[in-house]
């Protein structure tokens, strides 16, 4: 017995006390456990799918969806395929995510800086804003705003501002430029991009010249002006050549016997409530991140900036904030992810976001495949935000003196 035990050794150590053996054994056991559990689930799901005749696979994607989607930024009709309907719904979520992120960041920075203000009332007001908005569930925010929008008067008694802006329980209708033809619109947009690049080049060239020679030549003004002039000239040329402007302003106006608003662009009530709710909720978190970032910059930086004669605004803009960005950006990006994921609550207030449409899809398409698609879509969105954040973070990190 003793000889047998002694033979169960590895380099003189009994194997049950050998760290490598123990580690490998526990890894193999845990890995196997997970594999067994997951395959048990998969086998069960497979059995259920066969037993209940649930359709599976991805062949449904080319079938017609045949269900209307409430709001859509891409053109959509019921005869479009499942795949295209999924893309339309994903676009709805992406639009909310991008616009929401921009607005929430702007509002969050304003509130966060106000929280640090030397003015007692402003600082306390910002504190109350933050403490109230982030301590209440987002769903309550959304319901609150949605029922306020719902309580707006119907179309006929709705508010009209300057014959241009219509506000009623259907949403807010406002004038909107529509492309007169896709060819012209894309041509003009392409020149605008070129103009922006040229403007940026002019700006950099003049900035460098100013730094080199000391000759002031208003680089920012000159850059913007050159971009605007190029854009305006192509607009005029395009209009003169084809007799119609690349974009035509469409005005909302009541139509028909029910006074339904047609023309322009109508922001549906659900979308407005979603935007207000998401932006105010997320901005209260961003405000705290901004405050933590600003506080992370040493007091000496602010004091030194003030001592060399920079104004309070310039100190914040040129000294404190650029340094604070290093601390701010990583948690800020995770707030962007949260906002994107939180937009899935849109279904509760009748906005057709990705989750909401996908939920409807599960009634006519295999749920398992739909879930794989949803997870992939959110994963792609999360990864995109992370990539943007990491790229920005690399640019802003300490590079030494």
């Amino acid at each position, binding site marked *: 017995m003793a000889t047998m035990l002694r033979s169960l050794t590895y380099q003189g150590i009994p194997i049950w006390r050998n760290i490598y053996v123990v580690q490998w054994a526990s890894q193999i056991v845990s890995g196997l456990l997970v594999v067994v559990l997951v395959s048990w689930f998969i086998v069960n799901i497979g059995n259920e799918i066969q037993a209940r005749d649930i359709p599976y696979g991805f062949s449904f994607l080319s079938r017609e969806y045949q269900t209307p989607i409430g709001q859509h930024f891409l053109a959509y009709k019921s005869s479009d395929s499942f795949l295209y309907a999924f893309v339309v719904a994903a676009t709805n979520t992406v639009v909310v995510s991008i616009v929401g992120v921009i607005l929430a960041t702007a509002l969050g920075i304003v509130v966060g800086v106000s929280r640090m203000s*030397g*003015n007692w*009332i*402003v600082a306390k007001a910002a504190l109350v804003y933050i403490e*109230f908005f982030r301590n209440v569930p987002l769903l309550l925010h959304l*319901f609150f705003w949605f*029922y*306020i929008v719902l309580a707006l008067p119907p179309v006929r008694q709705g508010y009209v501002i300057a014959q241009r802006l219509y506000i009623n329980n259907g949403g807010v209708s406002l004038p909107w430029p529509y492309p007169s033809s896709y060819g012209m619109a894309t041509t003009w947009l392409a020149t605008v991009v070129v103009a922006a690049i040229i403007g940026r080049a002019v700006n950099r060239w003049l900035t460098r010249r100013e730094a080199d020679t000391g000759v002031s030549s208003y680089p920012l003004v000159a850059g913007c002006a050159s971009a605007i002039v190029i854009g305006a000239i192509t607009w005029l040329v395009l209009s003169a050549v084809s007799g119609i402007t690349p974009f035509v302003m469409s005005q909302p106006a009541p139509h028909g016997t029910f006074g339904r608003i047609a023309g322009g662009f109508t922001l549906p009530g659900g979308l407005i409530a979603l935007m207000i709710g998401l932006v105010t909720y997320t901005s209260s978190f961003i405000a705290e991140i901004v405050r933590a970032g600003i506080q992370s910059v040493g007091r000496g930086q602010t004091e030194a900036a003030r001592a060399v004669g920079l104004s309070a605004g310039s100190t914040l803009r040129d000294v404190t904030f650029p340094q604070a960005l290093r601390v701010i950006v990583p948690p800020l990006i995770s707030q962007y992810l949260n906002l994107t994921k939180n937009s899935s609550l849109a279904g509760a207030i009748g906005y057709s976001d990705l989750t909401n449409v996908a939920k409807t899809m599960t009634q006519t398409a295999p749920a398992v495949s739909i879930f794989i698609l949803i*997870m992939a879509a*959110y994963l792609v969105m999360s990864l995109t935000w992370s990539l943007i954040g990491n790229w920005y973070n690399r640019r802003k990190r300490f590079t030494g003196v």
Partner: protein
Amino acid sequence: MAAGSTSKAAMLPPPRSETGVVGWMRINLFSAWHNSALTVIAIASLALFLWYGLGWIILDADWRVVPTLGGRLIIGQYNIEVACPGQNCFWRPQAALLLITSLLGMAWYVAGGGLTKRIALLVGGVSAAFAFLPLGLDQMGLDVRLLLLANVPAVAIGWAVANYTRLGSASWIAILSVVAFLLTLVLLRGVPGVPFLHPVSVIYWGGLMLNLLLAIAGIALSLPIGIALALGRRSRLQVVKFLCIAFIETFRGVPLITLLFMSQVLVPLAFPDNFPQNSLFRAAIVITLFSSAYMAENIRGGLQSLHPGQAEAARALGLPGWQTTLFISLPQAIRNVIPPIVGQFISLFKDTSLVYIIGMLDVVEISRAFIQGNPEYLSSAKEVFIFLALVFWVFTYGMSYVSRRVEQHLGVGER
């Protein structure tokens, strides 16, 4: 001049403009022209906001909708005829509340007063005060009122039990809390065949009771699971590390609402037919796992903030690996990340309102459904949601207040 001598100027009091109310205002409100302008604008808009806000709250708002909702806010549909035929089941959640207050009484004794004492007295007092509500909350009979009143003696009994028996220790309270939670579940679910304990299906559980049950279960479980995941993610065992990363990133990458919906459609398929499960159970599991993925990242941050010398010193003194982790690394790591951990608890509590997606009527959803079903209350929607916002705010603000006090107690940032 000699170093010790003082001039007359040094003995003068500070100028009047620097002290008192006027001085405070000069420094904090009117230090420069733009600050003065900001103050005036802020005061003006605040005054407008308060004038119209208070005017609306006192004069225009119709708060009658809140008592109309009444007991539904607390227990949802638990008490309706279908759920609880032929009897009034309102008393069962109230009896469960007694367990909580008596545990709080015990905690008061163990903590020796302070914040715990105030929380115990507050919860007991407020619960008892509900007994005197003149409103006939949905079928709130004499039995419910008496049970509510009993919350005050329950605190005292808890304190006395902790004082005079051997149960007055933190570990006993932890064990009794688990027992009380299970008892609460049995009490609410009911036992077939026992009079007065008619089984009530979980689909009728609702209101604030549902939010609190999910939150308590989630908070109690997501911390240990999160710790395990965080340790796993930092492990040198590659398989374990990979599994933990895959779990954390999957759960963090998808919205909770999608996961909840998935649990409703997919999980019944994944288990055999005779496997016991219900929607409440699934919701609790999903919320817990979702929260523990975030918790794991918070705790990982705490572990990363520790100097490696701590663990090295512990190993050098001869502590085995698990003791190093349990007694050296984790306590310091968790102490460093109390704010994000409590922030995650608050998120979890707020997220419990998402169970509407699987058809459970939590406090938010039951109010919304009520407004939707009774169009005459459509104009009172604002009042309902503001009231609910206040309810949530009281709980979440309470949590962050306690966390700040715990941090002070542990001396975070001072050592």
